[in-house]
């Protein structure tokens, strides 16, 4: 229930921000139906709104969507589906459906949790994207409504629960410095990709968690 409400509200924000970013209603719906991964969708319209290149927009969306590959590898052994159902399961592999599936003890409950959450979020996400896009179309000047500021707040809300660990906080600080320094010198969209590159390097060079570090880093 709380997942459903959060998804609905989040979908309205996406739909409204997408159309004020200059993405058409049909394109906005294509993103929610076909791409169906909130972070990647917000990132894509962010790069488009900033005037970034198509390549930067696609790369940013794909890099943010790469975590879904890990999710797919985790849920596939639980679902054990074949054929066309596997394509559907792949499309429904997102933060919410994976979290619910992994949180169950019984494998039958994990399967049910995955499908109910995945289908539920898909339906709500698309319905509320449409609602938000229609509302955004009617709004007019996005700056007068503060919608440019709402986009930053939306990303902050997405990253907030991921900042509990010390290592994540360090990488977040690095990302802030890299982004601010690069905005004036590289084309729109590139600062975000540079921040991703910094995170890859940080992930490679940082030491594995020790048991002591784990207790200090609730995640």
């Amino acid at each position, binding site marked *: 229930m709380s997942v459903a409400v959060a998804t609905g509200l*989040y979908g309205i924000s996406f739909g409204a921000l997408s159309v004020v970013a200059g993405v*058409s209603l049909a*394109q906005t719906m*294509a993103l929610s139906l076909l791409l169906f991964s909130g*972070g*990647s969708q917000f*990132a*894509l319209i962010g790069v*488009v709104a*900033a005037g970034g290149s*198509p390549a930067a927009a*696609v790369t940013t*969306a*794909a890099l*943010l*969507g790469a*975590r*879904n*590959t*890990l999710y*797919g*590898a*985790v849920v*596939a052994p639980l679902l054990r589906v074949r054929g066309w159902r*596997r*394509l559907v399961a*792949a*499309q429904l*592999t997102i933060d919410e459906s994976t979290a619910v599936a992994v949180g169950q003890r019984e494998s039958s409950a994990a399967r049910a949790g995955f499908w109910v959450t995945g289908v539920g979020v898909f339906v709500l996400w698309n319905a509320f994207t449409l609602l938000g896009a229609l509302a955004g179309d009617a709004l007019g000047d996005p*700056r007068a409504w*503060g*919608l440019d*500021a709402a986009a*930053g*707040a*939306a*990303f*902050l*809300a997405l*990253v907030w629960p*991921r900042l509990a660990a010390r*290592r*994540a906080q360090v*990488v*977040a600080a690095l*990302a*802030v410095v890299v*982004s*601010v320094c690069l*905005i004036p010198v590289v084309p*729109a969209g590139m*600062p975000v990709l540079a*921040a*991703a590159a910094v*995170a890859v390097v940080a*992930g*490679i060079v*940082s030491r*594995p*968690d020790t048991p002591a570090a784990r207790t200090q880093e609730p995640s």
Partner: protein
Amino acid sequence: MTATVLWVTVLAAALACFALKFVGHLIPEHWLAGERVQRISTLVTVAMLVSLVVVQTFATGQSVVVDARLPALAVAALALALRAPFIVVVVLAAATAAGLRALGWG
């Protein structure tokens, strides 16, 4: 971007993101179970989202600008610290920026 280029962008991103999901379903789980792979994935997501916060708040074209978006982000952070739901955070941020602009700043 023209409408056609934007369509290509939208569909290419959708295809790439679906392919990433599908690949996860095809490969053996243990291929990606390594601690380092998990860690890099987590950190890349954090870094990109933080970078998007910075860009959305400070960038106007290729200039770094401080305007009504910054106090709006501060209000959003406060709301998140108080465990406000997503829509409240976003609406408060928008209302802060809109209010400051109505008063003639930012």
